[in-house]
C-alpha cells in the first residue's frame, strides 16, 4: 500500500510539473455582509465542467489553459455569482457572495455544491451548517454542535451524562477535536450535556469518520474540525441569547475595515444563581456553573499574508461552600499565518498551545486535600497546498507536538501535618510528515491518496518502570524496576507509516461509489474505567509498556441523489481493525496511580457496520433519517475467558429521525426521535457474604458485558418563532430575533444511564437493581436569541 501510494504521489507531482503554459485564477471567497471567508464554496468552470472548492481559509486556486471562461461561484444558501473572464495572465479575484435572506428560504437554490455528497471524493463525512443546528430541538433550548452531530450516521453517545461522543464504535478519546486547529481534550461541559463550542461563534463544523486524508492524524476514529468565525470586517455585529441554562453574547467588528477584525464570544451558565433561593443556608455559597470565552482577531496584512490569533478558555466550576471545590476546562491559543508564495502555492503555519486540566479540593482548616491533573501541548504545524492544475491539489506538511502530562499532584493535610503526593510528569514528542494529493482523473473518477509518517518519542525526565508478569493472566503486573531518565532522553520511540487512499467512481450525474482506506496511529490514550467517560479521565502517553494503538479502516459507500437533489441517499459500510487496544484489568486503579501501566492490558479490537442515510434537503418539510447497524468488539487475554465481547460503545441499532417544517415566515417546527439499542454492561449472576458484609455481587462465569441496559429512546420537539421583521410604521427592523420553545424528552421516558446493583439501604440482606436516569422527566424550555 505504501509503495502504491508513493507512486501515485510521484505521478501526480510529475504531471503538474510538466503542465506548462497555464494561467491561474485565484482569490478568496467571502460573505458579502460580514466578510467571513467561506469554507468549501464551489468554483466551477462551465466550459470545462470542472472546478475546485475553497479551502478552510476561503482560498481557491485553479490553473487553466489561456482562454475565455464562465466561472460560477456558489455556496449553499448563498446566491451564485457568475463571472466571465479572459484568462491571458494570472488573475486574482476575491468574490463576495450574498446570503439568501431568511424570508426566501422556499426558493430553490441550485448550485454545484448541492451534489457535493456525490461529487466529492471524501466519504464518511458529517457536515451540519449552523442554520440547521439552530433549528433542531435542543436540551434547554441551547443549540449544540456535538449533540446535533450525534443525530448523524455513525455518531453516538452512551447516554446523557457521558462526556464526549463515539464514532463508529470508537472511544471518546479516539476523536481528534480541533478548535481552530488546536486539539481540545474534553469537548464537553457538564458531563456531555453541552459541548464547549459557542454556536454563535462557529463558522464551520466537519466530522470525518472514514477515508481520512493524510493531513490528519494522531487519533483513530474521527476528526471533528471546528472553525470559529473570524469576525465581521465590514461592520459591528452582535448576537446572543438568553436561555434557561445560560446566556450568550457575541460581539464582532472590524478593526480596520476589510483588513482586520475581531470576534469575542462568551457564555455563562447560571444554574447556581437560579438555584440560590432554593438552597439551604449551608449551601448558599455554592457555585455550580460553566463558562467559555472565545476571542479571535485576524489581519490581512496584504494580498499574500494574513494572520489569525485565536484563544479559547472554558471551565466548569463546582464549589460547595468552600469545603469542596472542583473545576476543569480547556484553554487553547493558536496563531496562524497564511502565506501565498504564488497564485498556486498556499501555505499555512499554525502554532498552538492547548491545555486541559482539572482540580479538586476538599476540606477546610487543618484538614485539606488538593489535587490537580493536566495535559499540555505545544505544537507547530506547517502545511503547503499546491494547486498544481485543475486535476491535482497536492498537500504536504508536517507537525511537531510536545506533550507534558501531569497525571496528578496532590497536597494533603491531616490535623495540620502536610503530605505531598506527586506523580511523575511524563513527556513526549509526536511528529508527523505527510504528503497527499487530490486527483481528478476523469469526469467519473477522482482519487485522494496520501502517506503520513508519524513518530513518537516517550522521553525523560522521569522514571521508566518495568513490570513483571502478573499472577493471573489479566492481573495487576508488579513493578520490577525503575530507571531514571534525564530531560529529553528518549525512553521509547515508535514510528508508523499511515497510508490513506480514497476514490470516487461517478456512475452517473446523480450517483457514485466511494471507497476509503486509512491507517491511523494513536500515541496518547484516554484511560477511563468508568461506565461513561468523565472529566476526570486521564490522558497517558504510549510508553515502554503501553504501545500505540493502530487502526486500519476500510469504508465503502454508495451515494445517490433523487429528484434534482431534493433527496440524498447514502449507504456506507465500514470495517475497522484495531491493534494494541488499551484495556483495563478488573478493579483497575487509574487515578493517582504511579504504576498505572501495570493495570493496563493490550488487546485487539474490531468494529463493523452499515450506515443508511436519507435526507430531504429542500422544501417546507425537510429533514433526515439515519440508521446504523453496527458491532464493536474487543478481546484481551485473561478477560471474558479470552473470548471476544461487545465493547462498551457497541450499539446494535441506532435510528435517528430529524424533521423540520416551516409553517410560514414566522413559525417553524422541528422534531427529532432517537432509538438506540442498550449498551452492554456487566451484571452479576450470584452473590455472597463475608464477615457480616452482605450482597457482594459476583459474575460466576467471568463474562464481561454479559447483558445490555434497556433500549434508549427519546422524542424532542421545538418551535421557533421569528420576531417581526417589519415595524408598525412599515420600516424593516435592523435587528433579527427569535424565540425557541423546546421540549426535551417529550414523552417523559426514564432512559437508563446505568443499572447498578446494590443492597437495599434499609435491609442489607436484600439485593436490588437500580436504574439511574440522568434525565428523569421531560424538560421544557424557552430561549430568546437576537442578532443585530
Amino acid at each position, binding site marked *: 500500500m505504501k509503495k502504491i501510494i508513493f507512486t501515485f504521489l510521484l505521478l501526480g507531482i510529475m504531471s503538474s510539473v510538466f503542465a506548462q503554459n497555464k494561467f491561474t485564477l485565484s482569490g478568496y471567497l467571502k460573505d458579502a455582509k460580514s466578510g467571513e471567508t467561506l469554507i468549501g464554496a464551489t468554483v466551477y468552470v462551465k466550459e470545462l465542467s470542472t472546478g475546485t472548492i475553497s479551502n478552510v481559509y476561503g482560498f481557491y486556486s485553479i490553473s487553466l489553459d489561456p482562454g475565455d471562461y464562465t466561472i460560477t461561484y456558489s455556496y449553499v444558501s448563498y446566491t451564485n455569482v457568475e463571472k466571465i473572464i479572459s484568462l491571458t495572465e494570472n488573475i486574482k479575484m476575491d468574490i463576495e457572495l450574498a446570503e439568501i435572506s431568511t424570508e426566501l428560504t422556499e426558493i430553490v437554490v441550485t448550485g454545484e455544491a448541492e451534489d457535493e455528497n456525490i461529487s466529492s471524493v471524501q466519504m464518511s463525512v458529517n457536515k451540519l451548517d449552523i442554520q440547521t443546528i439552530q433549528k433542531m430541538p435542543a436540551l434547554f433550548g441551547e443549540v449544540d454542535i456535538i449533540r446535533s452531530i450525534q443525530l448523524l450516521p455513525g455518531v453516538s453517545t452512551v447516554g446523557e451524562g457521558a462526556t464526549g461522543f463515539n464514532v463508529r464504535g470508537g472511544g471518546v478519546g479516539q476523536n481528534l477535536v480541533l478548535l481552530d486547529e488546536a486539539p481540545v481534550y474534553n469537548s464537553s461541559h457538564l458531563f456531555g450535556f453541552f459541548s464547549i463550542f459557542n454556536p454563535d461563534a462557529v463558522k464551520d463544523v466537519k466530522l470525518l469518520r472514514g477515508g481520512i486524508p493524510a493531513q490528519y492524524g494522531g487519533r483513530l476514529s474521527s476528526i471533528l474540525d471546528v472553525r470559529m468565525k473570524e469576525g465581521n470586517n465590514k461592520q459591528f455585529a452582535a448576537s446572543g441569547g438568553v436561555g434557561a441554562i445560560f446566556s450568550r453574547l457575541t460581539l464582532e467588528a472590524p478593526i480596520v475595515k476589510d483588513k482586520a477584525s475581531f470576534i469575542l464570544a462568551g457564555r455563562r451558565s447560571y444554574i447556581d444563581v437560579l438555584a440560590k433561593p432554593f438552597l439551604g443556608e449551608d449551601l448558599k455559597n455554592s457555585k455550580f456553573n460553566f463558562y467559555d470565552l472565545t476571542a479571535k482577531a485576524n489581519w490581512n496584512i496584504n494580498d499574500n499574508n494574513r494572520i489569525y490569533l485565536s484563544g479559547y478558555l472554558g471551565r466548569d466550576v463546582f464549589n460547595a461552600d468552600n469545603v*469542596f471545590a472542583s473545576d476543569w476546562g480547556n484553554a487553547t491559543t493558536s496563531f496562524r499565518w497564511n502565506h501565498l508564495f504564488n497564485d498556486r502555492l498556499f501555505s499555512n503555519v499554525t502554532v498552538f498551545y492547548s491545555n486541559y486540566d482539572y482540580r479538586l479540593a476538599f476540606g477546610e482548616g487543618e*484538614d485539606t486535600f488538593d489535587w490537580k491533573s493536566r495535559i499540555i501541548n505545544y505544537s507547530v504545524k506547517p502545511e503547503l497546498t499546491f494547486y498544481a492544475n485543475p486535476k491535482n491539489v497536492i498537500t504536504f506538511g508536517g507537525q511537531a507536538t510536545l506533550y507534558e502530562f501531569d497525571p496528578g499532584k496532590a497536597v494533603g493535610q*491531616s490535623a495540620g501535618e502536610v503530605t505531598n503526593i506527586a506523580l511523575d510528569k511524563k513527556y513526549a514528542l509526536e511528529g508527523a510528515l505527510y504528503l497527499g494529493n487530490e486527483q481528478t482523473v476523469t469526469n467519473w473518477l477522482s482519487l485522494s491518496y496520501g502517506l503520513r509518517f508519524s513518530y513518537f518519542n516517550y522521553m525523560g525526565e522521569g522514571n521508566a518502570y518495568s513490570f513483571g508478569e502478573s499472577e493471573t493472566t489479566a492481573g495487576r503486573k508488579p513493578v520490577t524496576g525503575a530507571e531514571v531518565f534525564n530531560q529529553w532522553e528518549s525512553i521509547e520511540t515508535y514510528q508508523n507509516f499511515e497510508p490513506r487512499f480514497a476514490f470516487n467512481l461517478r456512475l452517473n450525474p446523480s450517483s457514485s461509489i466511494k471507497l476509503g482506506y486509512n491507517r491511523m496511529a494513536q500515541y496518547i490514550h484516554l484511560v477511563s474505567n468508568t461506565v461513561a467517560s468523565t472529566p476526570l479521565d486521564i490522558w497517558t502517553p504510549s510508553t515502554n509498556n503501553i504501545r500505540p494503538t493502530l487502526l486500519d479502516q476500510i469504508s465503502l459507500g454508495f451515494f445517490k441523489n433523487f429528484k434534482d437533489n431534493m433527496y440524498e441517499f447514502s449507504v456506507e459500510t465500514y470495517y475497522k481493525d484495531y491493534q494494541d487496544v488499551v484495556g483495563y484489568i478488573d*478493579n483497575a486503579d487509574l487515578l493517582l496511580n504511579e504504576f498505572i501501566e501495570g493495570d493496563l492490558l493490550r488487546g485487539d479490537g474490531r468494529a463493523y457496520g452499515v450506515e443508511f442515510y436519507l435526507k430531504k434537503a429542500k422544501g417546507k418539510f425537510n429533514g433526515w433519517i439515519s440508521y446504523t447497524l453496527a458491532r464493536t468488539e474487543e478481546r484481551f487475554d485473561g478477560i471474558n475467558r479470552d473470548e471476544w465481547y461487545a465493547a462498551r460503545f457497541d450499539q446494535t441499532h441506532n435510528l435517528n429521525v430529524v424533521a423540520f417544517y416551516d409553517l410560514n415566515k414566522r413559525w417553524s417546527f422541528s422534531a427529532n426521535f432517537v432509538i438506540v439499542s442498550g449498551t452492554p454492561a456487566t451484571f452479576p449472576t450470584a452473590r455472597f457474604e463475608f464477615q457480616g458484609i452482605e450482597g457482594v455481587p459476583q459474575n460466576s462465569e467471568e463474562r464481561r458485558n454479559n447483558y445490555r441496559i434497556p433500549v434508549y429512546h427519546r422524542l424532542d420537539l421545538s418551535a421557533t418563532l421569528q420576531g417581526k421583521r417589519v415595524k408598525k410604521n412599515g420600516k424593516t427592523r435592523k435587528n433579527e430575533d427569535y424565540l425557541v420553545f423546546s421540549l426535551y424528552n417529550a414523552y417523559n421516558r426514564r432512559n437508563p444511564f446505568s443499572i447498578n446493583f446494590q*443492597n437495599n439501604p434499609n435491609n442489607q440482606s436484600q439485593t*436490588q437493581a437500580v436504574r439511574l436516569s440522568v434525565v*428523569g422527566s421531560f424538560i421544557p424550555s424557552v430561549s430568546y436569541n437576537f442578532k443585530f
Partner: protein
Amino acid sequence: MKNIIYIHRFVVGFLLLWALSSCEDIIDINLDAGTPQLSIDAWITDQPGTQTVKLRLTRSYFDNSPAPLALNATVEIEDSEGNIYQFLDADNDGDYVWMSAQSTEIMGVLGRTYTITVSYNGETYKASSQINRTPRIDSLVYEFREERLGNPAGYYAEIYARDPQGSGDCYWIRTYKNGKFLNRGQDINIAYDAGFSAGGNVDGVYFITPIREGINPFFEDPEDSNVTLPPYSIGDDLEVEIYSIQEDAFYFLQEVSTQLTNGGLFAVPLTNVRTNYVNQNPNSDKKVVGYFGASAVVTAETTVEE
C-alpha cells in the same frame, strides 16, 4: 485518596443530578443464575475465644433467602510455628468452629502467618494471611455539630489513632453502633498507613480526617426518606475495632466497597472482587469466593453523653 475521589464524584454527581431532575428507581431485571461456587468466610483474630469459618454456596443475585450451606468439608488452619487448628461443623450448619482446649489458648499471634486449607467436593483450596501490627488508639471522641452541607445536626465521632512509622501498614476500621456492626458498603472504612492509598506518603501520622470520621454512619429516617438522621444521638453506644490487615486484604476490601457503593455518573463496571484462595489442583477451573484474613485487633468504646 480514592475515597476522596469517590466523595468528589458523589458531590459533583449529586449537584448535577439534582440540577437535571434525574432519578433512580428500582427495576426488575431477569438475571441468569450463575453456577454455585463455594464461598469461604474466614477471618481469624488475636482475640481470645472460638474462631469460626463459614462455608456457604453462592446463590443467584436476587435470591434473598439464606445462602445454601456447604457441608461435609474439612477445614484446618496451620500457623507458621507448625500448630494445626481443626475446625469442625458439629451441628451441620455450615459453620466450622475451632474451640480452644484451654480458655487461655489464643490462636492468633502477632507476626505469625496462618494458612487455611479447605477441602470440599473433591477440591482443596488454600490461602494464607499474616497478622500485622496495629496502630495505637489515642482517643475516641465525639462532638455536637450544626447542620452543614446537607449533613444533619447531631453528634459526630472521630477516632484518633496514629499509624506506626514504616509504610505498608493497612487497617480495617470496623464500627458498631449500639452493638450492631455497620455493614453497608459506605461503612467500609479502610486505611493504608494513615491515608487512603499506597504511595499516599502519609506514614506515621494520625489517620487523615475522612478516615477518622469514617465511623459516622448516615441513615435515612424510616418515617421520612428525605430526612437524614445524624450519626449519633445522646445515649448511643459506639465501638470501634481496628483490624490490622495485609495490603492484599486492603485491596480486597477496597474492591468490595467499590462494588457495594457503585452508582451515579462515575459508576465503574461491575467486576469480581479478588480472592486469595487458590485451588490446589492446577487443572481444575473451580474457584471459590471469599477472602482469608488474619488480624490483630484494638478497640475503643464510648457512649454519647450530653
